[in-house]
């Protein structure tokens, strides 16, 4: 049966209202403050480290994103950790709060489809994250200009913009997951706890579990072990399993985009090195090609989780 009208009728109204709510909410402000402070600390460490160690680097600005100084991790590593927190903070009560406020049936009694409500909330969440990340990006560029005194090159800007886009997709995965959980669980507290549990599992536990599981699936060959090498099958399995975590995918994509000398994100075989000039940076296009599978995986993850939330929401009873 074909539905009358557009599923996106009212989408703009929902998205704008949610965007205004997100940007003015105390929760979002606290999260943004936390991220800015942490990012500033990481940047301070990076700038200090670069001033001491780097004599000449064609990609000085990019190193602001990736260089760390113990005990602080790099700016990118901090974002990899905090972006999910921000996305979960925006999405965990997207739908269940409408149920609990008893606004859902009233809103859906207006001439809109459920599609517009869910999509509007998702787009508003993603726009909020994009605005926050863009502000952070500008902060890095600005601080780089002020403290390093070197204007960024065109390729550096392009690579850092690629970082921004991939970071938004990465945030999208967590936002979709949080929104799915907000549809599934009526209690926002339960949705938040489950989302945080998944985040901790995929960010902290999975990187430890993936190699162990890989060794069970493809036991290491002792001959490689005697040579001090990883068994290729085991290494490939470990990498494949690790890539189930969005955090790992984001880390790999960032490595390819922000470190121009990165030539591969998996095990490197000798034939792949034939003719390569070691240490030479790859052109931007080549780096993007390396990061492409990870980026597509993040987009696919976002879409799959959003569609799952959409299906569950469509089947749900509106009655509060």
């Amino acid at each position: 049966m074909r539905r009358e009208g557009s599923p996106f009728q009212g989408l703009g109204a929902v998205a704008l209202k949610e965007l205004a709510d997100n940007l003015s909410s105390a929760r979002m402000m606290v999260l943004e403050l936390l991220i800015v402070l942490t990012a500033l600390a990481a940047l301070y460490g990076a700038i200090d480290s670069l001033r001491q160690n780097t004599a000449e680097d064609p990609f000085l600005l990019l190193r602001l994103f990736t260089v760390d100084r113990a005990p602080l991790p790099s700016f990118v590593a901090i974002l990899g950790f905090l972006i999910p927190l921000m996305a979960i903070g925006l999405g965990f009560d997207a739908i269940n709060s409408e149920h609990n406020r008893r606004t859902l049936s009233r809103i859906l009694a207006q001439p809109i489809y459920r599609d517009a409500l869910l999509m509007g909330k998702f787009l508003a969440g993603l726009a909020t994250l994009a605005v926050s990340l863009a502000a952070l990006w500008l902060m890095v560029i600005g601080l780089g200009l002020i403290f390093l005194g070197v204007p960024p090159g065109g390729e550096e800007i392009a690579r850092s913009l690629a970082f921004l886009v991939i970071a938004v997709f990465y945030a999208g995965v967590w936002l979709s997951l949080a929104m799915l959980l907000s549809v599934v669980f009526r209690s926002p507290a339960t949705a938040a706890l489950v989302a945080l549990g998944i985040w901790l599992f995929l960010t902290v536990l999975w990187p430890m579990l993936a190699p162990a599981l890989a060794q069970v699936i493809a036991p290491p060959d002792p001959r490689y072990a005697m040579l001090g090498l990883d068994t290729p099958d085991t290494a490939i399995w470990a990498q494949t399993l690790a890539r189930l975590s969005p955090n790992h995918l984001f880390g790999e994509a960032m490595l390819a985009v922000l470190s121009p000398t990165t030539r591969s994100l998996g095990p490197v075989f000798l034939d792949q090195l034939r003719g390569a000039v070691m240490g030479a940076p790859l052109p931007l296009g080549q780096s993007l090609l390396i990061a492409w599978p990870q980026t597509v995986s993040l987009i696919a993850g976002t879409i799959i989780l959003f569609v799952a939330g959409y299906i569950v929401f469509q089947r749900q009873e509106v009655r509060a």
Partner: protein
Amino acid sequence: MSSADNNDVKTSDNIVIAAQGLTKSYDGVRVVDAINFDIARGEVFGLLGPNGAGKTTTILMMLGLTEISSGKVSVLGHDPARSPLRVKRKVGYLPDSVGFYDYLTASENLAYTAKLMGLRSAERTHRIAAALARVRLSDVADKRVATFSRGMRQRLGLAEIIVKQADIAILDEPTSGLDPQATLEFLNLIEELKAEGITILLSSHLLDQVQRVCDRVALFQSGRIVLMGAVADLARQVLGAGFVVEVEAEGTGLARRLATIPGVTNVEAVAADRFRMTAERDVRADAACAVVGANGSLRRLSVDEPSLEAIYARYFQDQIAPSGAARHAA
């Protein structure tokens, strides 16, 4: 009761809601079971029944907010399952315990739903101001809804229906939990909407309120409509006759004269000068004529209209009695 039984005051042209065999099942359990009813334009129709009887589910099916398992319903000539947007453009809905965004003001809450209705900015501002004035919330238009009482929230919900300029207003338990003053104010607002010709579907379990504003009622029981019609019709059907007229007069042969009035089913002499008449209609005028015609002197005339509560109580008493007797016999 079939819809055909109630078509005497309606024509197919002015019917705005028509349900035929409307059914909703959850996991094989029928919560709304093949109901039929028609509602005419401008009518105030009451859906009565205990909690869980299927009233809200019926409403949600009319709005296209829940799937229909079988049967069909037409709202303003549209099928809510196929054309929900057309239906929702013309139907205002005030849910049970209506919720608003507490952190927004009354105007902002209405502005959001007005945007969802597709109203342009100037039109939106004008309609919102008019609606808030209408429900007497103008002075708190810029206050956050968090500070509103339940009665104010209900009125704000009604303002939303006014902003929409709906042809049909569906009100689900609108006065439940309101204090008497707020209830009175709300019922007055419903009567104002009725006077403007808006069709109103009122779901409630508060019988006296339903009786005050509704032209016809449908009594729900376990997902079925077991009684439907005007209160007087239901009184005739369930109570035999619903009007009790008390006459206090002096004269000779009054009881005999009063008994001959058409529609009177019984005359009881309570005292030498007091008579209690049971009738199918309000027969006060005829009774006064009868007393005067008998050269009597009329001192007092009063009528007790049939009460929905009495009809409801008697109906369920009658339903329980045979099964109780059967159990006793067994």
